[in-house]
């Protein structure tokens, strides 16, 4: 993340758990703390077409551990009086901390491949992921970042609001223009609800960046 955690005591030693020679992904300016995205999530089902407006904000990113987090705000949700805000945590597929295989949240390998293959930017990688899980892939130079986002709790409404955060999103981020697409996966919800977001510039003619530094 665009922060430095300043250690005032003895210098850190490298964790002994890092297998092989994988390194963390390089930082991407548009996937940083403070960056905001806006778009829609298609929540259509067989009965009706529906889309919610969605705003996402990244609050923190830790490339060393393949972690990021932020908030997601859903507007015009029919069963809610106000926009619904959730806090989510993400796993970055970097081949070091996380792979393309989820291994939890009731997602099988078949579910994983079914979802990743819906991103055009995944197709050059598909063969290798299917054969050896993508162990040989050099994701450091790939201009797309793949993630899983899992909502953890509701920020401004109760759990009885009629909404669910049981599933998670398969996400693809484009490093060049900061656009995000995703698919929501929850065995008990309509499949392949698509999330599409673009960067937000708050009325500016260009990009603006805020930052913080954790001590």
């Amino acid at each position: 993340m665009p922060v430095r955690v300043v250690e005032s005591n003895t210098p850190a030693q490298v964790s002994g758990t890092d297998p092989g020679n994988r390194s963390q992904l390089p930082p991407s300016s548009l996937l940083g703390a403070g960056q905001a995205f806006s778009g829609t999530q298609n929540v259509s089902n067989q009965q009706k077409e529906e889309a919610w407006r969605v705003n996402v904000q990244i609050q923190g990113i830790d490339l060393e551990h393949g972690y990021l987090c932020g908030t997601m705000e859903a507007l015009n949700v029919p069963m809610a009086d106000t926009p619904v805000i959730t806090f989510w945590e993400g796993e970055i597929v970097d081949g070091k901390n996380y792979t393309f295989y989820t291994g939890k949240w009731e997602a099988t390998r078949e579910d994983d491949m079914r979802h990743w293959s819906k991103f055009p930017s995944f197709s050059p990688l598909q063969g290798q992921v299917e054969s050896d899980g993508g162990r040989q892939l050099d994701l450091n130079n790939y201009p797309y970042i793949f993630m899983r986002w899992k909502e953890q709790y509701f920020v401004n409404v109760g759990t009885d609001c009629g909404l669910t955060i049981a599933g998670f999103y398969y996400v693809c981020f484009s490093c060049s223009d900061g656009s995000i697409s995703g698919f929501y996966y929850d065995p008990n919800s309509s499949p392949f609800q698509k999330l599409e977001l673009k960067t937000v510039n708050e009325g500016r003619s260009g990009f603006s960046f805020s930052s913080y530094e954790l001590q």
Partner: protein
Amino acid sequence: MPTTTTSAASSSSSTASASGNNSNRQADVFSRLASSDPEVKLKALREVKNQIIGNRTKKLSFLKLGAVPAIASALADADDSEKCNNILVQSAAALGSFACGFEAGVQAVLDAGVFPRLLRLLTNPDEKVVDAGARSLRMIFQSNQAPKYDFLQEKNMEFLFSLLNSENENVSGLGASIIAHACGTSVEQRVLCEAGVLEKLVILLDGSLSQREACLESLATVLKNNPEAVSDFVGLESGRYLNSVTELTKDRYPRTRLLSCLCLVVIYNTSPSYFVNMGTKSGLITTLLELLNDPGQSGDDAALGLSCLIAGKEDLQKLAYEANAIKNIVDILKTDSELQTKRLQGLFLSLAELCSKLEDCRCSFVSLQVLDLLINALRHKDADVKAAACICLRNASRSVKNLSAGRFNSDHVMLPLVQLLHDPSSSVQVAVLGALSNIVLDFSSPKSSFIEFGGIKQLIELSKSMDPNARCSALRALRNLMFLADNKRKELYISDVNAQGFACLISDPEPPVQEQALALLRNLVDGCISSIEFVFDEDGLILDTVGRQLRKGPQAHMAIQGMYVLTNVASGTELHKEAVMQQLFPQATGSENFMLKFLQSDESQLRSATVWTIINLISPSSPGAYDRHVKLRSAGIIPQLKNMVNDACLDVKIRIKTVLGQSMSFGDNY
């Protein structure tokens, strides 16, 4: 003979008050201490000794009455004949008792000038006299006030080894104590190792309990931060000596277990490669955790020892976490309200280290309700405890998840922290600023307890402190407070700081202060477009200062923040973009444009920030983009970017592609 640096003080005996039976008896004792009759003197010495043993109040009381000089005189007056032996033994024992764990007592003994006399007792033919002298001297050498010992003098080394070689375990233990407390430099460590002290100390580990403990302390002192000494030690007898110390971590005596653990901590911190075996690391952590429950000094030292061991080491922190360290420490803190200061400090520092890198630990914090314990500790009377609690809070609040959930943004947490900004201790101030820096990051929740308690004004004051660390920390806290802040919050800061004052911060003599000031400015001009106007106050003083600082060829970290200020301003209106161009191309300049230098920096973040400024300046939606592009091209900046299409950093490469794409739309060839 070793020399002492203390000078003999004049006798300061005073008479006791005439009132009360106690005072009468004490006055009586003094007159009997000065008696010429050895039996009377001896009885008086025994009386004093028996009263003060283990009794700090009595020690203080007798000290104030001048007992130490009186006893020192008794010792000095006694000759080495056999009939004076009892007097020598009792006076040495009494002096030793005064010095035992009582700094004022040590001071008084040294001031009385009796140290050389005590040393001479070590060569007395009577074993009991030697014992008493050795024990007394050991008490003195437990203290930081003990005289310096010059290990580099050959005579002193000979004397030291004569002690270590003595059959008398109190004497050899004294030799070890001298090393433990007086060896300070790597030169001294080397000289001791070359003289064979490591082998000697390990052999002495097989002796009595007190000798073993002194030897473990000495080993740690000789090995500390000295990789050569550690290598020598581990190499001795094919690692058998290291095994001996490791075995002692399972000894039945807690203090032995503790001191052997501390020895291993020293070895690990100096040369971790000797600890490849996970079992040893786990065993060490488990033993230290068990020792935390020891009610005595071993428990105090175990807490600090644990924090030293896991400091900065994620793998050990993980082992400790898996061994339930957090719960163990929290249970101790919750159940015992009368913990010693040193132990409290050690426990909070251990918790701080556990939370320094591991998110699981930080989340445990919250679930185990540790916050309340920390808040109480912020009100402790001891500065070290308060500082340790602040450091703990700082590390726990590195959790973006918990910050986002508002776990620290409550009056209950914030008020004592804000109050500590006025603490007289500078170590507490530094520590609380560190904690607040993180905790004020509330991701723009509507309510900020910190602001409600007047925190902004305090930070503004601290940003003008004489201490550069305080200025830097205060600005960092302000920066974090202004992260994604709305105009209302920004106004609370801007209204109290004028452009002149802010320009001074950007031009601070200390680069880290400049960096934080620019980072704060970056956040102030982000967000709503109207907030950019701040840099134009007082005829654009702040923007001019930013430009001036960037032209001076600053360090990369400062330049990154400066370029992001320009990036953010350049994302504004046409006027804003033109103002940035004026900073990049001021009228009177003959030197190379600083952007060209930044684009060639080794720091990818600086290259990236510079390219973003360019992206914003030639953003196609703005009317003056074409003219600005022409200027950037003729200044060599666009051609420089063409040379960087294969930049090693993916992000820089992508941004350059964006610029060149925009360039093509202006009719430029790729």
